[in-house]
């Protein structure tokens, strides 16, 4: 037990001193800070104007198509626009000049002929506009309709019968209710996948480094292979947890310092990030990490050169990606039966179970069953990995094939 602690502590010290580790973490933290500064960066490129500031829209109705009542549209308002209405005669060239001078961002010229109302939409470059400004067209069209209805002098009842209030009710036929914040949970699943995958990968690299530096022979005579594998797994797991904590803290500080309050509310409901979500996520991170890390311990011990690590880890990476996509597809369709399989399979359950639990899709027995399967998997993988590690680690020849690994395992069991 004491040696397990010694190996874990030594692994942590060794890892955090590596230049590659320090540099990659600094880059990740800088990316996080940069992401939270996107609005400020966009502002810089937008002549100091907020990227989300309202665009200035000029509507010109020189022929009084709207009977001089177009000002009503300002009261109705169009999301994202500050509107100015003009009934003066302004030539296209003049409008172009105003847009070029940034006096206005966009302009609309309204005219009518026969039974058609033409709307000429003028913008500096159509690339800057996401799509046809349907909201503007709809606002202009409903303003025009209202003006025309008012001309008919209808009674209140007649007016109500033309424009009734619609009440929308949604009902689902399935019993399971999906609740919570889908976006947050998907984000969490992606973060879980990368955290588990990259931390587990480090175990393989660490083992191969010890093997290639030939220190392993001294090490295996100083403590048992079991202690080395488990100690490394624990050490790197602790580093992974610290990394995630540092990233979350950096993200939180960046959000507080650089983002306007409420800007993320439309994407993320922070009320959904409860202590129970954090505990469940932590449990699945630890279990998922342990399962993948122990497989990586096995692959790491089968190679003799650092450049072979990637090819040896290839099959495990494929397994992890299948697990991730399995959980990702089920997130797209949370009530499908595939979701139940993904929640039980040890390769995918760490990524999708927190999502299912928080969405209210998993019952207690599902959680117990899924954690049980993961624990059994970890136990089996640990047993096999340690057995193969203790034999393969002193093989300095070429990379071991699957056949060699099976032979080693059988020999160890004899």
């Amino acid at each position, binding site marked *: 037990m004491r040696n397990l602690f010694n190996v874990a502590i030594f692994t942590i010290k*060794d890892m955090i001193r590596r230049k590659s580790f320090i540099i990659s973490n600094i880059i990740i933290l800088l990316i996080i800070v940069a992401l939270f500064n996107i609005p400020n960066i966009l502002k810089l490129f937008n002549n100091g104007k907020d990227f989300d500031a309202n665009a200035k829209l000029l509507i010109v109705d020189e022929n009084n198509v709207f009977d001089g009542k177009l000002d009503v549209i300002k009261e109705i308002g169009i999301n994202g626009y500050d509107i100015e209405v003009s009934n003066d005669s302004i030539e296209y060239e003049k409008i172009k000049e105003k847009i070029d001078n940034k006096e206005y961002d966009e302009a609309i010229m309204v005219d009518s002929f026969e039974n058609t109302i033409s709307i000429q939409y003028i913008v500096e470059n159509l690339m800057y506009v996401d799509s046809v400004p349907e909201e503007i067209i709809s606002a202009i069209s409903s303003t025009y309709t209202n003006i025309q209805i008012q001309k008919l002098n209808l009674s209140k009842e007649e007016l109500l019968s033309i424009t009734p209030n619609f009440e929308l009710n949604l009902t689902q036929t399935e019993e399971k209710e999906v609740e919570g914040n889908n976006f947050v949970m998907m984000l969490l699943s992606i973060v879980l996948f990368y955290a588990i995958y990259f931390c587990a990968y480090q175990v393989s690299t660490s083992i191969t480094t010890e093997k290639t530096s030939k220190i392993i022979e001294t090490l295996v005579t100083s*403590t048992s292979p079991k202690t080395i594998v488990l100690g490394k797994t624990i050490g790197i797991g602790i580093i992974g947890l610290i990394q995630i904590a540092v990233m979350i803290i950096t993200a939180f500080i960046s959000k507080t310092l650089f983002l306007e309050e409420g800007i993320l509310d439309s994407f993320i409901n922070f009320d959904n990030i409860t202590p129970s979500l954090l505990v469940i996520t932590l449990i699945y991170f630890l279990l998922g990490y342990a399962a993948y890390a122990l497989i990586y311990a096995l692959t790491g011990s089968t190679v003799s050169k650092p450049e072979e690590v990637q090819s040896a880890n290839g099959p495990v990476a494929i397994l992890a990606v299948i697990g991730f996509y399995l959980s990702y597809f089920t997130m797209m369709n949370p009530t499908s039966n595939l979701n139940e399989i993904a929640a039980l399979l040890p390769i995918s359950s760490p990524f999708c179970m927190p999502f299912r639990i928080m969405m209210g899709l998993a019952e207690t027995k599902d959680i117990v069953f899924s954690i049980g399967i993961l624990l059994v998997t970890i136990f089996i993988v640990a047993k096999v990995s340690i057995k193969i590690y203790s034999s393969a680690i002193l093989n300095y020849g070429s990379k071991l094939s699957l056949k060699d690994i099976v032979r080693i395992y059988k020999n160890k069991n004899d």
Partner: protein
Amino acid sequence: MELGKTTTIRMILGIIKKDSGKITWNDKQVERKNVNFGYLPEERGIYPKIKVYEQMMYFAKLKGMKVKEADIEIKKWADKLKVSEYLNMPAEKLSKGNQQKVQFMTAILHSPELLILDEPFSGLDPVNTEIVKNVIIELVKNGKYIIMSSHQMSSIEEFCSDVLILNKGKTVLKGNLREIKNKYPANRVEICSKQNIENIIKEQNLDICFSKDNDYEVKINSEEDGYKLYKKLAENNSDILKFEIKKPSLNDIFIEKVGDK
């Protein structure tokens, strides 16, 4: 040469599985929990980025030493092996010889009763070889048992009382070194003289294996040949600085046992 030394050592230490048989030390199976052993592997390995002191402390702790006790031992052996000034340096900055001495330290720090050294002198310069030799002599004086594996027969002759010669994993010779050597008759004479004595040797119908600056190595068939030659040199009033009748060296025995096979 694939003789099977390292494999045998790995089996002794339980690093690799043996096909059959039993390996015991004082009636106990040689395992970490039963026997306090130290091991210097043939493959030189060290954590390159980690400071020497730190890795020494790590291995000392793994072998059950307390921090204070380990600190004293690290400093003591670093001083004896002349690596004190490198303790706070990353191991990769040390010369190969010093790295080897550091690795040797990890094998002896915890005061093992049984010390297994696989090619302890390979790659060491004469100064460092002497330093390591002195430490080994000190360990033997302190009652430690040493199993040494080497291709350098002179080192084995210098340190070992019992030998085992392997060839392709099979034992070709084993036993007490002196007894083994006694079984072989004297086969050469080493002479160091002040003048050229080549003619006197040839008069005795003996072959000169080697000669340089009045130093000679002469092949003999028995000790009797040696005595006769000595007598003849005395009769000729030759100024002899050294005259030694020699039995075959371990190197000769090794070549005889392994060379043809």
